[in-house]
Structures are given as structure tokens and as C-alpha cells.
């Protein structure tokens, strides 16, 4: 038995990106003692990579904007699969969340009359994205970080301890959510310090998961190493279901060359500010890919599209600004048809559209990124871009108002790890606002829940801690595969080579990229499930060298559990949903099926009673359950034209 340090807090937030920090600020301001756990250093979360902006209908640039329009755009973008109540709350509260950042010191770009400037983005009817050049995510994370520091300064004045009410445990990984054996309520988390490898337990009646996404399961991704689906897996293992995991967004424009930066994001602002997509023949091919549901909203000629930048009220926007799923599929088709760029992408050009100094001012980090990493001067030549795995719309199923996970009292989720808000496809800019709106809600309701429990805190049994510790230590005593036979017979277990976690990870990424990628087919996904099962068997033998102190091999071996779980959810759900919608495209079912609109696919652990050890590795760990969505509230439906609704909703839904 290991003796593990236990600490007591009211709320523990796992993840220190935009959602996690916003949740922590809210919980602390509600009076809860709050701990934040993050895998990276404080302030390095993946949110810093967000470039374009925060969508909020402040109407600073076009006063026709309001929350209803934003709501409509969000629902259209998500192909009506969104949890409509979340989309409603999001559209209503986003402006307040942005303004509040200013009172914490954020400095957004300004309009001429000194308000927050807003820019155009794909799928948004009006200029709506509050931004700072193309480094909005950095501004967001820094502002939240500095707000946390300011709260700690207040605590220092009052208690003489910066960390009395709010503490960040940086470079720590959480491997298990611990629950009370008796009533199944959340009781805390099991974590280790990456630096020392030391285990610790935080006893807290509420856990807010804000761990972001799953991109590291794919080979070409814009996501950082942290995005291993930790929160998704923690929730699953704790008994909470995941929602619609088949919807994975491939951002249309990632870098394609050089190989080492393949997948790194090229912000959508490039297109929002006038950049155009061309194929190898020099054609603006997006005009050929406007789907019927969007026909009325987009320009038919290049001239009209170009006029829109100056006069958006009397012209329609260019199709480069279609929602991301449409653009990604179009690029994919062009490349497949042999009209791609030399390195297998298409051309994204701003150099012929704007003067060089304007490009450098409006897209400074893009200029920098291409110059430094690819030796390309975007003011003089076109960029080569192609789709990259960017975001998962699916996630932990939550109650819309409270961000509470279904079925596990005390568990909350916000940000990318939570599902539902974006439906089948997320609009650019809606992510940062999602983080703030639901981060705050999660913090608020978690604090209330914790306060409501009073002194009756759930209890963590030592046995649970021992199990978690044993699971975390497995890679140090891993044995090689049984079937390692030599001429003299099987090797003794100690001499068999263990699986290399780096190799396993690469194989997983390749499999997901090739078989459950942007265009999906039934046979391929079936193959993917087989490969995943095989990898799962091998991953149990993943071994590592060295000791527990800052050992990246060990960290990766532990993260593999999460990536495999989440990948299976994606593959299984994708196989199940026999239609194409948003971020889920089936070659064998190319159309959108109104019958599927109401259907949510919930992924659950197949064997919720046992740990992973009890799960048959071949049979799979995930079971799917279908659940119908609630009908959209009539006053919200009334925001749309009937002709539009017909395209999405089944007959009976329209007349209810």
C-alpha cells in the first residue's frame, strides 16, 4: 500500500485553459476554495493557439447583430444537432463574458470610436469576433491568468498566503476521478506531479473537467501534446457518458509543409480578411462547392464576393467563408482530383489581395509562422494548406444550464471536453466564447453544489487510491508480448522487449487518420476498430525506462489509455451514424438524413463495474446508446424561416 498525500479543497478544476481558468475564477469568487490541475505550466494551455477571435454579438461593427442572429448562425453551423439551450445561453451571455475580460485588463483591437473591434469569420452573418491581431487565444489565457494572480494577491493581503483560496498545481496529470463507494458521488481526483512522479490525492466534492480535446489521436492535427482526451476518458471511467463523439472538426487550413509542422493551424482570419483559396489551375474552386442549404447566403461570382468585403449589406459573402466542414471537404476533393499544390494541399493567397504592410499588421503571427517555419513570405507568395484535425464537437454529455455531467453527481465539464454546444460542426470563434460562458457556469454551479453539501463530504477509500496507484505504475513493470518466440522457445518474461509507447502512439495516429479521418467508410471503420483492439492489447504491455521523475515515456504510456478509449468512441459512433452531417462525412451515406437529427449517440463504458483490467480487450470497451433530443423551443424555432427549417427538421418536428 502506498501512502499518498491528501489535500482538501471545495472545487477542483482539471485543465487550465480558457474554460478551466474561467471556472476557477468563478468558483473562487463564489467563495469556494479552488484547486486547478494542469499538465503544462500555468499559462501554456492550448487556448494560446486560438487565433481568430471570440464570437460575441456586441454589434460594435454592424449594429444589426444580436444574440438571436448569433444563435441562428450557431444552429445552422451545427446543422441543428446542437443542444439548443446551450446555443441559446452561449449567444446570450458571450458579450458579457468578453466585456468582463476588459475589466481584468484585456486589450482587444479597437474600432474607430474606441469600442472592441470585431471581424468576419466563416458562418457568422456579421463581423462578430473580438480579437487581438491573430493572437486572441494568448490574450484570453493571459488575461485569465492575470485575473487569477490578482485574486491570489487579494488572498495574500487577507491571509498572508497567495494560495489560500485558489491554487494552481502545474505540470500535474490526473489519472482517475475518485468516487464515494457508497453513494457514487464525486469525492476527488488521483494525480501525479510530472516533475517528480509523486502521487497525490485531492479530496473535493466537485470536479470540473476542462481538459480540451482529443486531436493527439490523429496524425495530422493542430492540437498540442496535451490533447489526449484525458477529460473524456476520466468521465467515461467515472461512469459519465460521452455525446456524439463522431463529430470531429477538420480545420480546412493547416500547414502542409515542411513535414515537421504539418497540421499547424493557419487561422481562418486569413480568409475572413480577404484570403482566397485556389487550386493548381489557379481557380477559386469554392464557388463549385456551395451546398444547397447555403445557396442563398453566399456569392455566386468572384466579383460579388470581392464586393462583400467593402459593402456587406448589399452583397453576399464569398464561399471561402462557408463553415469549416464544407471548406475542408472541398479542399479534400480538389486534392483527390489531382488539382492540389506540390505538397498535397491547395493554395491560400493573401499576397495578391492586400498590401504587404496590411498583411503584416493584421496577420502578424501568420506572417511570422510561415517565415520562421516554412521560409515562405506570405506577403509575396501563396501558402499551401490542407485539412487538419482541429476540434471535437462531441464530448461529455452535460446539462445545458449547469454544465453538470449526466449520471455522476459532483462532476462538471466545460469547454471542448463538453459536448453538445456546437452540434455537428463548430463555427470559428464560438470556441473561445464557449470556454468563457460555460466555464463560468461550471464554476458557478460547482461552487453551489459544493456549498450545498455542507460538512457532508464524500469519502475516498484507501483501496481506490491503491488501485489508481497500481494502474499508474504499470508501465514500469511491463512485460513483453507472450508470443515473442525465439528458436530456443519463449523468452523469459524479463527478457522480452516491452512495447514502445512512442511506436504505439504513432500507429494509433496513423490508424485514426487513415481510417476514421475526414471522409469515412464502413469497412475502414470496422478495420479501425480491429486495429484499436490490437493496440489496446499491446498498450497494456507498454513499458518505460528510467524512473518517475519527469519521464515523458511514462507520461505517454499513461495517456495511451485515454487516447485509445476516446478513439474507440469516435470510431464506434462514426460507424453507427449512417448519414453525413457537419464534421462527420460518410462516403457510403453522403446525404444529411433528417431522421438522424434527433438522434444523439451516447458512448458509455461497456463494463462500468470493473476497471479496465476486467474489460475484455478484444470485445471493446464502449457501448453506444441512442437518445432523442428535446424538441427545440417554439420561440427559438420562430427565429428561422420555414423554408430553412424544412431542410433540417423532420415533418413532425415542424408542426409540433
Amino acid at each position, binding site marked *: 500500500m502506498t501512502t499518498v498525500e491528501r489535500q482538501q479543497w471545495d472545487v477542483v478544476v482539471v485543465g487550465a485553459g480558457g474554460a478551466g481558468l474561467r471556472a476557477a475564477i468563478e468558483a473562487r469568487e463564489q467563495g469556494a476554495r479552488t484547486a486547478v490541475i494542469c499538465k503544462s505550466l500555468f499559462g*501554456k494551455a492550448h487556448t494560446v493557439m486560438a487565433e481568430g477571435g471570440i464570437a460575441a454579438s456586441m454589434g460594435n461593427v454592424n449594429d444589426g447583430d444580436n444574440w438571436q442572429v448569433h444563435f441562428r448562425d450557431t444552429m445552422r453551423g451545427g446543422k441543428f444537432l446542437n443542444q439548443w439551450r446551450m446555443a441559446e445561453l452561449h449567444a446570450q451571455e458571450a458579450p458579457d463574458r468578453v466585456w468582463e475580460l476588459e475589466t481584468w485588463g484585456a486589450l482587444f*483591437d479597437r474600432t474607430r470610436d474606441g469600442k472592441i473591434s470585431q471581424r468576419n469569420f466563416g458562418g457568422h452573418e456579421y463581423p462578430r469576433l473580438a480579437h487581438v491581431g491573430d*493572437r486572441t487565444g494568448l490574450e484570453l489565457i493571459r488575461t485569465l491568468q492575470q485575473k487569477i494572480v490578482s485574486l491570489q494577491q487579494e488572498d495574500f493581503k487577507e491571509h498572508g498566503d497567495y494560495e489560500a483560496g485558489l491554487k494552481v498545481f502545474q505540470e500535474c496529470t490526473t489519472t482517475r476521478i475518485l468516487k464515494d463507494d457508497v453513494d457514487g458521488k464525486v469525492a476527488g481526483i488521483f494525480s501525479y506531479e510530472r516533475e517528480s512522479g509523486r502521487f497525490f490525492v485531492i479530496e473535493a466534492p466537485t470536479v470540473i473537467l476542462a481538459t480540451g480535446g482529443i486531436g493527439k489521436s490523429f496524425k495530422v492535427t493542430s492540437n*498540442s501534446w496535451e490533447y489526449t482526451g484525458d477529460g473524456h476518458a476520466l468521465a467515461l471511467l467515472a461512469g459519465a457518458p460521452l455525446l456524439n463523439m463522431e463529430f470531429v472538426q477538420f480545420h480546412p487550413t493547416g500547414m502542409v509543409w515542411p513535414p515537421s509542422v504539418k497540421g499547424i493551424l493557419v487561422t481562418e482570419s486569413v480568409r475572413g480578411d480577404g484570403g482566397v483559396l485556389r487550386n493548381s489551375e489557379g481557380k477559386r474552386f469554392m464557388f463549385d462547392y456551395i451546398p444547397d442549404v447555403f445557396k442563398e447566403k453566399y456569392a455566386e461570382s468572384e466579383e460579388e464576393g470581392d464586393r462583400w468585403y467593402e459593402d456587406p449589406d448589399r452583397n453576399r459573402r464569398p464561399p471561402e467563408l462557408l463553415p469549416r466542414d464544407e471548406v475542408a471537404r472541398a479542399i479534400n476533393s480538389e486534392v483527390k482530383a489531382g488539382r492540389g499544390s506540390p505538397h498535397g494541399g491547395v493554395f491560400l493567397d493573401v499576397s495578391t489581395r492586400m498590401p504587404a504592410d496590411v498583411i503584416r499588421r493584421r496577420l502578424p503571427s501568420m506572417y511570422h509562422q510561415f517565415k520562421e517555419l516554412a521560409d515562405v513570405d506570405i506577403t509575396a507568395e501563396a501558402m499551401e494548406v490542407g485539412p487538419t484535425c482541429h476540434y471535437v464537437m462531441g464530448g461529455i454529455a452535460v446539462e445545458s444550464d449547469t454544465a453538470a455531467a449526466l449520471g455522476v453527481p459532483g462532476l462538471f465539464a466545460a469547454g471542448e471536453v463538453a459536448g453538445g454546444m456546437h452540434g455537428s460542426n463548430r463555427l470559428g470563434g464560438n470556441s473561445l466564447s464557449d470556454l468563457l460562458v460555460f466555464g463560468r457556469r461550471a464554476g458557478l454551479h460547482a461552487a453551489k453544489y459544493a456549498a450545498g453539501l455542507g460538512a457532508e463530504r464524500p469519502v475516498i477509500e484507501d483501496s481506490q487510491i491503491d488501485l489508481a496507484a497500481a494502474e499508474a505504475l504499470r508501465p514500469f513493470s511491463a512485460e513483453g508480448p507472450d508470443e515473442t518466440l525465439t528458436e530456443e522457445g519463449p523468452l523469459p518474461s524479463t527478457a522480452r522487449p516491452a512495447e514502445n509507447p512512442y511506436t504505439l502512439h504513432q500507429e494509433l495516429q496513423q490508424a485514426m487518420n487513415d481510417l476514421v479521418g475526414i471522409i469515412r467508410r464502413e469497412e475502414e471503420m470496422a478495420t479501425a476498430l480491429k486495429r484499436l483492439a490490437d493496440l489496446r492489447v499491446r498498450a497494456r504491455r507498454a513499458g518505460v525506462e528510467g524512473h518517475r521523475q519527469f519521464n515523458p515515456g511514462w507520461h505517454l504510456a499513461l495517456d495511451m489509455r485515454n487516447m485509445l478509449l476516446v478513439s474507440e468512441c469516435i470510431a464506434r459512433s462514426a460507424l453507427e451514424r449512417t448519414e453525413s452531417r457537419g464534421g462527420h462525412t460518410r462516403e457510403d451515406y453522403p446525404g444529411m438524413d433528417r431522421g438522424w437529427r434527433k438522434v444523439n449517440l451516447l458512448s458509455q463504458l461497456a463494463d462500468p463495474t470493473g476497471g479496465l483490467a476486467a474489460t475484455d480487450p478484444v470485445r471493446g470497451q464502449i457501448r453506444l446508446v441512442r437518445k432523442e433530443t428535446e424538441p427545440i423551443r417554439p420561440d427559438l424555432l420562430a427565429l428561422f424561416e420555414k423554408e430553412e427549417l424544412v431542410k433540417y427538421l423532420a415533418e413532425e418536428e415542424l408542426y409540433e
Partner: protein
Amino acid sequence: MSTAASTSYEAHFKVWRGDTDGGGLEDFKVEVNDGEVVLDIIHRLQATQAPDLAVRWNCKAGKCGSCSAEINGRPRLLCMTRMSTFSREETLTVTPLRAFPVVRDLVTDVGFNYTKAREVPAFVPPQGLGPGEYRMMQEDVDRSQEFRKCIECFLCQDTCHVVRDHEENKSAFAGPRFLMRVAELDMHPLDSAAESGLERKKTAQDEHGLGYCNITKCCTEVCPEGIKITDNALIPLKERAVDRKYDPLVWLGNKIRRRPGA
């Protein structure tokens, strides 16, 4: 640009491995391909030769500031240092940041910076302006926005000789990054620290050790974001401190202006 011609080669690396108890440079021969950066090579070492080689990284696009280390003795971001900037024959020496305590291999304890961050009083919101009522002109936010480009890679803190060469100065000196933070707030058009009795320019000198800076500009040289830390933050801050204490005309002006009121 053509990928047909094989452009990979074998490079010679020396990587510092060890921890607080000691360590040394270890030799590696490792494959390098077209377009790669130093971080790619470190990752290849992890995947093929040294699975427990510790390195801190995150975004791999120069945006998070995690992978700070020293390459051939110069503080750099591993992910933004292209292999093509070195000759193929050159041996690359990679060490952890040398101004901070080492944790393991290329990972250092950067806690100093988080301590200093806490010592700079936060933005003071203006009284009487609610959320949504802030009005600021672009030309008034430009200066602070430049400083807010900072990705907190702490390369400036590492290279600054005030603390790099003199551990004992760490308690008195905030370092370029956090002096720049003071400048950022002092130039923020709506920061009302002064109204609440906090004179930021004065604290820069009295509490954050601005006087230790001898403007030798290494912070500006290493900044991966190209922020003109010395010219735009530190020197203006020194000048603002001079306004308070040493300027003869300001002193005279105050004398004359105060007289009628007195």
C-alpha cells in the same frame, strides 16, 4: 522545394542530461530531415534512443513558450530553431536554461518567474466604468499590446546577466519580463493604479529593481516575439522614473504650478 531528392543526413548532437545531483553532455548521432526544427530532433531522440529524455514543450508553433532551452550556448525556443540554420558538420549542443534550477535534462524549474509575476500588482479597473463601457483608442493601446504579445518563454529572464550571473540578485530584481509588465500596466489607457495610490513607475525602481538593468539589450536580442523590450518598455520605464525623481524641468514646473495653490 522538391522532396524527391533525399535531403536527410545524420547530425551530431550533445544534449545535457542529468538533474540537481549533476550530469553532463551526452553524445548522439541522429537523423535530420528537410524542414525540421531542433525540437523534432529531440523528439526523435526520445522515440528512438532516449525514451526518458525530459523536455518541456507544448504547441510546437512558437506560441506557448514552453520549449525554452539553450542551443550552442544561446537561449532559444527549440521549436522555432530550424536545423537549416546550422551547417551539417556542426555539432549542436543543447542544454537546459542556465539561469534557473534544473529539474531533469532539458527541463528547468521556472518558479522564479511565477513568484515575480505575483509581485506585480494587477490591473486596477477604473472607477465608474462598467463592463462594456470601456472606450480606448487603438493608438492608446498599441504600446501595451506589443508587450502583451509576450508568450512567457522566459528566455529574457534566462539571458539577463543580472540574475543569470548573480543568483543573489534574484530577490531584488523582477527581470525584463515583469518590468515590461509594469510598463504595460503603466501605459494601459484605463489603468487607475495612480488614483488608488499606487505609483507604478516608482515601484518599478523601488520594488522591482529597475535600476539593476544596465540596458545591455540581451532581453531584446533573445525575444522570439520580437518585442523591443529595452527600447519600448525598460528605457521608457526608466525615463518615467526619472520624471518623478531627477528631471530639473519637471521639478521646476511642479514648484511653479504648486505655488499659486499653496
